[in-house]
């Protein structure tokens, strides 16, 4: 049952990830905005979400990649790209603006769907649309124009 092996890990990982977002307060867009509002009444709690996740993953990552391969695949798929290009920089700027406007990043955005709120539906729909634009010629064209300047 190879398919069961392939889907089991990601399924459990998704459940745990979602619960982690909920427990940490990341599923409340107001918390995200308050975290980004360093010039207002800053709420620093969410810094600890990142700290907790990074400490755990930094240790486990090193233990796991020492193994010859993952449990259910033949190799690890880890990016090794080191170039700091315009795509990365502009991408991060655009993402940051969208994050600041909505208080949602992709994970909490998907989780928010279960709230049934219109804002969550609009966010996920337009986010997927934005992904298509990013992949399209239009996205490449915008970037190459930025590159020339």
């Amino acid at each position, binding site marked *: 049952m190879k398919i069961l092996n392939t889907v089991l890990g990601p399924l459990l990982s998704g459940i745990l990830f979602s619960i982690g977002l909920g427990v940490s307060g990341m599923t409340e867009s107001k918390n995200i905005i308050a975290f980004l*509002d360093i010039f207002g009444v800053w709420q620093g709690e969410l810094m600890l979400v990142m700290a907790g996740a990074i400490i755990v993953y930094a240790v486990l990552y090193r233990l796991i990649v020492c193994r010859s391969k993952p449990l259910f695949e033949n190799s690890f798929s880890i990016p090794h790209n080191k170039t700091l290009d315009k795509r990365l920089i502009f991408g991060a700027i655009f993402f940051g603006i969208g*994050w*600041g406007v909505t208080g949602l990043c992709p994970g909490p955005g998907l*989780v928010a769907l279960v709230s049934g709120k219109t804002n969550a539906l609009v966010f996920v729909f337009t986010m997927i649309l934005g992904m298509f634009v990013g992949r399209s010629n239009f996205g490449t064209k915008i970037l190459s124009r930025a590159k020339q300047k």
Partner: protein
Amino acid sequence: MTESYLSALFGGVLIGLAAAGMLWSNGKILGVSGIIGGIFRSKSWDFYWRISFIVGLLLGALLIEPLGYSIMQLEIDRSIFMTGLGGLLVGFGTTIGNGCTSGHGVCGISRFSSRSIVATLIFMFSGIFTVAILNYIAEVV
């Protein structure tokens, strides 16, 4: 006050464990934007792990409120237009920048990836700047 700090840390630990589990079982980096984006262009086998992660994410989301935590209760007052604009920017930005808070912010920083460290600093500052400007506009107008 202290409680919210503890739950933030504990939630973070769970997120780290989820990302480690993904690496251990399937050898993949847990980056939500990449996983979603990949669904629409993945061929056969690659599709299954991506969609099962998303299904897991949605199943987990159903457990959040029964566990006593909340989703989108403290809504910010952004219009549908602003939400849509923000969604577009999040989708576009994470696609050309190859990652979001999970892929760059958690997994990438833990791997000491220079790209991820730069991306995370930039999207943090960009988010902080955006919130500052929106608050300023809201006060003045």
